[in-house]
């Protein structure tokens, strides 16, 4: 039996793998692991279907004309190294870009950032976490001086007497987490869900606020306005633990209840009841997720919720405070160790001379040889073919998952050379010039950091299939061909120990978190600066991470940035995850069980809207935005707002529709709201159709 963690989301449920004759024969939830206590969702419990999958890539592929043909590793690696040299000689070092993913282990995320800066000396690196966590990360860093998704262990959720969940649907996206919500409700906690959809999570809560997509910032400011007007502010906390409240107090005067009701559609009475519940609770939490964060004002929206948590004196108190529910498997660790355009390991800033000196010292390179910060994920994809001529893509499938994806596909087509590392031939991998097959969760060692900031060991249960190599081996082999192989060890533990040194003294300090301690069963949350440090399960009890130890209020104002509806595009489109699928579907669409559970993207449409448009359940419709069209079948449901269409984003084509308008701070695209037209696709509808790419 091998104790490890689920390959999917940030909950990183503990699992046990049973092996026989070199193959994994069973996967069960690990009862002793504190976040899931043995519980698993359907994605996790079917994860074995991916290991010995018939479509598994087991050989490097090289493009020959229109086809990808199997080649040996040396041929593929030599070719990629030659292309790197050719492109960099002709266009400069930044012309070779790297695009990573929030599913990579800490070791890989760390090594990928180092590979870009030390092997390629390229500024062009970012990752898909930009599309996931960046708004919450930017807001938390701005307000608290540090970004850790949950500043407390997950079970603390059960301790909150009132819990407000904004744009988060864990009942579908991370079902095993629901036990903690349920435990809270059994204790008598009051749960309030903010979501344009009446989700399974909302159905389990006591109160559901159903705002217009893109108006969460106004909603949060409106609640703070009422808190101030009704004398609910914790003045003592504000005075002793924060700065900047006066300007926030002034700014939210413009967000009076009637105005917020009109903007958001949430009744004044519900606004009042919500903020009074939060303020009168002994312990209260505000959790945000992608619904609030994936907007062109996502950073400010999260900040507005943080402002509310600070004004009510919640942050840093037991069972209380704002937190964000991270999405991707290593969404937390993946954003701490240098995959991001502007970061170095340990959540250090690439532009900070002291950080450059420290990390360059660990790496044994000249600080001046490190490139300066590059551009964010969407901007990087948008520059393909112009500034960036060659891309190394791993653990991500941007032609499905990036906003304005049809445009991204055209940019990728315009590359001189595309290298994709994956274990399946994803839609992005199909476009590659070289594909490297890589290891899956049960075939590798490493660490991940879950949504709590808890560092976890991923353990190897079986050998990878013949012909498959881990990313660490691939990057070493490429670096060696570029004359820098000695900087890139291939053993995960060696990479991790280097990561610990590189992160030492940074905000996300892993120095004291050794594999030995983890393997001995210690529960360790960063920061953990030394071998005898117990780690930090709960942040902010005494101090925030800014130099003055105080949290910063930041005045933020709703600016109505969401794409306008008009006569041509009269409705709002929002996207999200469904219960059976995950991210771009590269894995889950290949799981027979999950594919059967949800074989295609179904657009949720309110029956009143369907009637207006002359549609019925199951009709094929064309959704058209200012960027593209996509055809999907509709499912009529009263759980969605009458003016909003919801489509799960796990299938090609859906993100062709979404907007790439970026948040000015986090560079998060406006995934969660854009204007859309809905029209019936004329008959015949006799043959079932796949969603076109």
């Amino acid at each position, binding site marked *: 039996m091998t104790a490890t963690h689920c390959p999917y989301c940030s909950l990183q449920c503990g699992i046990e793998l049973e092996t026989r004759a070199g193959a994994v024969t069973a996967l069960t939830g690990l009862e002793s692991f504190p976040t899931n206590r043995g519980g698993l*969702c359907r994605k996790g419990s079917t994860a074995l279907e991916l290991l010995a999958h018939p479509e598994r890539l087991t050989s490097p592929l090289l493009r020959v004309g229109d086809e990808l043909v199997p080649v040996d590793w040396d041929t593929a690696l030599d070719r990629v190294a030659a292309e790197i040299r050719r492109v960099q000689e002709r266009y400069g070092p930044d012309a070779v870009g790297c695009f990573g993913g929030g599913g990579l282990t800490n070791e890989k995320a760390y090594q990928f950032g180092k590979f870009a800066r030390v092997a390629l000396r390229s500024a062009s690196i970012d990752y898909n976490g930009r599309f996931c966590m960046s708004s919450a990360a930017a807001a938390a860093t701005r307000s608290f001086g540090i970004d850790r998704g949950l500043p407390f262990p997950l079970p603390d959720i059960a301790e909150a007497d009132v819990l407000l969940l904004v744009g988060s649907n864990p009942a579908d996206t991370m*079902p095993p987490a629901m036990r903690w919500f349920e435990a809270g409700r059994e204790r008598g906690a009051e749960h309030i869900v903010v979501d344009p959809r009446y989700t399974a999570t909302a159905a389990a809560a006591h109160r559901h606020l159903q705002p217009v997509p893109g108006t969460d910032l106004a909603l949060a400011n409106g609640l703070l306005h009422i808190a101030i007007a009704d004398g609910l502010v914790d003045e003592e906390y504000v005075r002793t633990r924060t700065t900047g409240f006066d300007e926030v107090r002034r700014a939210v005067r413009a967000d*009076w209840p*009637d105005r917020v009701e009109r903007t958001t*559609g949430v*009744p*004044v*009475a519900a606004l009042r009841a919500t903020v009074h519940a939060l303020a009168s609770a002994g312990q209260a939490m505000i959790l945000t997720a992608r619904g609030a964060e994936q907007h062109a004002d996502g950073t400010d929206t999260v900040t507005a919720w943080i402002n509310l948590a600070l004004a009510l004196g919640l942050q840093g108190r037991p069972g209380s405070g704002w937190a964000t529910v991270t999405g991707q498997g290593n969404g937390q660790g993946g954003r701490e160790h240098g995959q991001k355009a502007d970061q170095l390991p340990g959540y250090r800033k690439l532009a900070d001379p002291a950080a450059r000196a420290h990390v360059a010292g660990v790496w044994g390179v000249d600080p001046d040889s490190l490139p300066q910060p590059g551009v964010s994920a969407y901007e990087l994809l948008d520059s393909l073919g112009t500034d960036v001529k060659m891309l190394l893509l791993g653990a991500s499938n941007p032609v499905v998952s990036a906003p304005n994806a049809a445009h991204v596909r055209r940019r990728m087509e315009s590359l001189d050379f595309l290298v994709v590392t994956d274990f399946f031939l994803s839609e992005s991998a199909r476009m590659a010039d070289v594909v490297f097959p890589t290891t899956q969760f049960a075939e590798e060692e490493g660490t991940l950091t879950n949504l709590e900031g808890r560092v976890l060991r991923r353990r190897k249960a079986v050998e990878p299939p013949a012909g498959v190599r881990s990313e660490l081996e691939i990057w070493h082999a490429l670096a060696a061909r570029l004359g820098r192989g000695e900087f890139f060890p291939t053993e995960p533990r060696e990479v991790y120990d280097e990561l610990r040194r590189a992160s030492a003294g940074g905000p996300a300090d892993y120095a004291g978190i050794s594999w030995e301690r983890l393997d001995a069963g210690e529960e360790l949350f960063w920061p953990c600066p030394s071998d005898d440090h117990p780690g930090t399960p709960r942040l902010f009890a005494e101090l925030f991470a800014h130099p003055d130890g105080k949290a910063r209020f930041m005045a933020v104002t709703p600016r109505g940035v969401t794409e306008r509806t008009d006569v041509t595009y009269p409705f709002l489109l929002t996207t999200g995850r469904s219960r059976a699928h995950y991210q771009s579907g590269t894995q889950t669409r290949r799981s027979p*069980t999950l594919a059967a559970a949800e074989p295609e993207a179904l657009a949720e449409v309110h029956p009143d809207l369907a*009637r207006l448009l002359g549609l019925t359940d199951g009709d094929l419709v064309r959704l058209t935005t200012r960027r593209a069209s996509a055809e999907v079948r509709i499912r009529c449901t009263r759980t969605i707002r009458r003016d909003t269409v919801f489509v799960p984003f796990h299938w090609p084509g859906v993100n062709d529709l979404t907007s790439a308008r970026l948040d000015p701070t986090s560079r998060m695209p406006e995934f969660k709201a854009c204007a859309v037209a809905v029209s019936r696709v004329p008959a015949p509808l006799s043959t079932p159709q796949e969603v076109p790419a």
Partner: protein
Amino acid sequence: MKEQLVVVGNGMAGGRVVEEVLARGGADRYDITVFGAEPYGNYNRIMLSHVLAGEDVSEIYLNPLDWYAASGVALHAGVRVVRIDRSSQKVFADDGQAVAYDALVLATGSRTFFPPMDGMWLDDRTLIPGVFGFRTLDDTVAMIDYARERSSAVVVGGGLLGLEAAYGLRQHGLDVHVVQGGPVLMSQQLDSPAGAVLRGVLEKKVGLHVHTGRRPAAIRSTGSVTGVLLDGGGTIDAEMVVVTAGVRPNVGLGVASGLTVERAIVVDDRMRSVDDPAISVVGECAQHRGEVYGLVAPLWEQAAVLADVLTGADAIYTGSRTVTKLKVAGVDVTQMGLRGPESEDDELVQYSEPRRGVHTSLVIRDDMLVGATLVGDTTQVAALTQAFDRRLPLPENRAELLFPQAGQPAAVSAADLDPSTQVCTCSGVTKEAICDAVAAGAGTAAGVMDATRAGKGCGSCKSLVARIVEWAGTPAEGCARCDLVAVGG
């Protein structure tokens, strides 16, 4: 050298323009100068009725005086602009200063209209002590101050503002009479059935004396107000009079400067005067496509468009949909769009319960909500406002607009569920599988969950699992029937 942006008027429209320009980085392009006739920062005028009713005044300032300096805006508070020289592009103020502009924004708002009444004025500028308008913070503070020693008041004008004034004075313990010339209160918003319901509520709940169809002819005074003489005879004894009989746009600067003025200063879709592209006009002194707005939402929409235009973005204002709310505690009135149907094809949906003070009427045209009046009901205001503003599709059963529960399906009972229904979607467990587990001897919900893994994921199905287990375990209609159905299905 930056351009000079001069804003005349520091009320909700002018102040908002400045905020919106700053939010768009306008400080890089403009030096901003603001003139305000009142000696304060920009305050939230719609809060005045709350202030009159006794609420704290401290949260009223949208832009306190120190905000202007901190934001790099030169404010001249308590200074009036008296003249514009369009040829030299300068404004002249009543304190003698002249300021040049590249872009000029007129946001001079409106003022209280005092209908002609004998005995109202001491001289051509001064009201008899005890007579008030209800427009500014000074008006409000003076009313509160004056009301302290008084026991009765007459409010002239039974519109929205008049009723808020009357309610506010009631909170100070005064006996309050509302004199309304027409037959219906809030006649700009309400038809006569709705007005009648509102009147009943105001009389019973708030204790106002309402006189409709009467006009005040004269103010009676002995140095200060002692009463109001009504047209056609009769007197109401009162120690103060509040005049809320409408407002007039402050268009004097526009007229004197040769701008086109009809009901207000006429602007194009970019909020520019139709005569002079260097002059923009927003707020109650602006007339756009024939409309003059007096509500905050349209003013702020205009301000946002103008700020876009001033900072070089392309934007046009196409008019606003207006929603009016009466802000009187316990008396809820919301009105939007049409008061009633205008043609045979317009649908009218009404619900009236006068005894409880509830009256709702909706006007629907081409399957869209084009008007709604709600008296005494707050539960549907948000939803109907959304339907009105966003032109939402409407339920075929119009009753759902008034009573949302009308559209809710009844809760599904365990017995009614099809055996193939997935009860636990996390683990993919059907009702049939749960029944099988019960038949196999799992007697409790916990036992069934262990056996099937139902409820082991999100847990949201646990109560349904328990109900099915209970139902399946009931001999009369339990497993036997389940099996039958399962076989049949």
